[in-house]
Every structure is written in C-alpha cells, then in structure tokens.
C-alpha cells in the first residue's frame, strides 16, 4: 500500500474516530442523567423506608425523565448505526438530504461547543450516486470549518439542491475568510468524494457539487 493510500485510510479513520468520540460523549451524558434519576429513586425509597411520605407525582416525573433519556439515547444509537453502515459500499445510491441531516445531527455537540446554530433548510429529496462515507467526511469537515469561520453566536444555513443534473450542498452564513490550508484540505477530500468544492467569500458560502 502506497503512502497516499495509507494517508487516505488514516484521514478516514480519524474522521470515524472523531465522530465515534462525540457519540460516546453524548451517550455518557445520557447514562449520567439516568444514573442520577435512578439514584434519586433509590434515595426516595430509603427515605420512604424511614417513614417519609412519597409523592407519586415526583415518581411519575422521574420515570418520564428516564423515558426521555432512553428516547434520546435511542436516537443517538440510530445515528451511530447509520454512520457505521456508511462504509458498507464504496459507491451506492445517496440521499443527499438524509446524509446532510445525519451529518448535522452528528455535529450537534460540536456546534453547541462552538456556540453556532445550524439550520437545515427545507427542500426536496436529492438523490445521486457516490461514496456516502467520504461525502459525509467532506460535509462534516466543511461544516466544522464553516462553524469556525462563523464564530461564536454565528448562524449557519445548509441547503441541499439539484439543478441541471448537478446536486449541491450549500453552507451559508460563514464569517471570517477560510484559510488556504483548510480550503486545500476540503479540495483534497472533495476529489476523493468525486465532488467539487467552491468557496465564495463575498457571499460567505461554501458549496459542494456532486
């Protein structure tokens, strides 16, 4: 295996690791909340055993909180599963809206940490062929750099569109100019994803064409 192929594998692995780490962090938070709620139930049971009256409404609320966290955890694991299966086939039918939505969900924690709001604009389904994993990597890297460019309290919009047999994912709302090394990295991933990346600083947008 040549050095370029090895680097490509490593880039993909790094991205997989970054997303897996974010997912594990979210799951840890879900478990931590369930742990505290279970602990409260235990505390209330001990207090009840000592003769203190239990408020049924309080117990119902705790049960609802646990159910809410189980639902949240289930959503995180479903996204994780979809992401994990994106490496199954090197080229397949791609639903660009669905894939973009998944990338936005996977980067929710990053957006929160960077204090950036990401809005996915309504639109029609856009289908094409491609390597879903590398396309996700391109969109995620683009979104990460767009968040840095937008800065704290920035608002990014993402739109998926199709015209004249060209599918496009457009990120708008960027702020500071993207550095050359970031643009070069995006270009390099875009080539692997069979895409073209275009940065229009005067309009503060980043476009990926497929």
């Amino acid at each position, binding site marked *: 295996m040549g050095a370029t192929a090895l680097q490509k594998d490593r880039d993909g692995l790094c991205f997989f690791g970054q997303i897996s780490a974010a997912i594990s962090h979210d799951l840890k938070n879900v*478990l931590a909340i369930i742990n505290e709620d279970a602990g409260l139930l235990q505390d209330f049971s001990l207090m009840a055993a000592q003769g203190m009256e239990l408020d049924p409404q309080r117990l119902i609320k705790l049960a609802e909180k646990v159910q809410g966290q189980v639902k949240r955890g289930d959503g995180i694991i479903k996204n994780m599963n979809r992401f994990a299966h994106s490496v199954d086939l090197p080229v397949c039918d791609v639903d660009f809206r669905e894939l973009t939505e998944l990338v936005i969900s996977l980067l929710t924690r990053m957006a929160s940490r*960077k204090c950036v709001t990401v809005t996915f604009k309504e639109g029609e389904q856009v289908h094409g062929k491609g390597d879903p994993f590398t396309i996700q990597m391109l969109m995620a890297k683009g979104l990460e750099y767009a968040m840095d460019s937008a800065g704290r309290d920035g608002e990014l919009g993402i739109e998926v569109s199709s015209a004249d047999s060209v599918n496009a994912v457009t990120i708008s709302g960027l702020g500071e100019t993207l550095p050359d090394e970031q643009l070069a990295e995006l270009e390099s991933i875009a080539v692997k994803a069979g895409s073209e990346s275009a940065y229009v600083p005067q309009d503060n947008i980043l476009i990926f064409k497929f």
Partner: protein
Amino acid sequence: MAEKVLLVDDEKEFVEGLAERMELRGMNVTACTNPQEALDKVDAEGFDAIVLDLQMPGIDGIEALKHIKKARPEMQVILLSGHATVEKGIEAMKLGAMDFVEKPADINVLTDKIKKAQAKKMILVEEKTEEKVKDILSHKGW
C-alpha cells in the same frame, strides 16, 4: 458544616438530578448550566468545591479551571467528564484541579471527594490567615 458546592454542567437534567441528591446528603448546592454565569459566581462568592464539566458550550473546562485558580486559588475544583482521557486529566491536575471524576458519577465517591475538597480549602484558608497575622505582627512590631 454543610459543604458549599458549585455544580456546573450544560446538561440541565443532569445538574438538577445530581444537585438534588447532593442536597439530600446535606450539601448546600448552587447549580449552573451556563459556564460564564458560573465563573461570575466564582468571582462573587466562596465555595468549598466546584464540580465542573470539562466540555461545555463556549468555554472549555480547562479554560474555566485556569480562570478559577487565578481568581480564587483556594477553591477546589473537581472536574467531571464523559471523556476522561489521561492527557486531559494530567493537564487538569497540573493546572491545580483537585480531582477528576468520570461520568456517570458515583455519588458516594463524589461526596467523599467534596468532603476532602472542603477540608483542603479550610487548611489553605487557615494558612493564608496565619500568614496575614504574621505579616501584621511583624509590621506593627508588637
């Protein structure tokens, strides 16, 4: 004496649950989900222990730790994280964190660490007071 604790984490439900359990154990807890608000509280009030999440929106736990130790060196910080990497742990300890707890936290372990934090803070405050008294005595020449 009840331990005065500042609990900082952006997960509202986690903070609410843990704060209630700590209060049931006799602690006086101030819960905060906004890191900047928490730093303002540190500047304004005294706490025996600060339980601080490592990853929060807008401010890194390590940055918050640096701020706290600079503003109030006697305050004891226990970092809380879902990702307790060895590197982060070492960095936090070097910067003056008292301890590191991984989520989900065991309430008994956390309570024990908070009690130790209170004791440590009291020693530091006593040492500081002693130094002040010595300084006053030496300058006044009594």
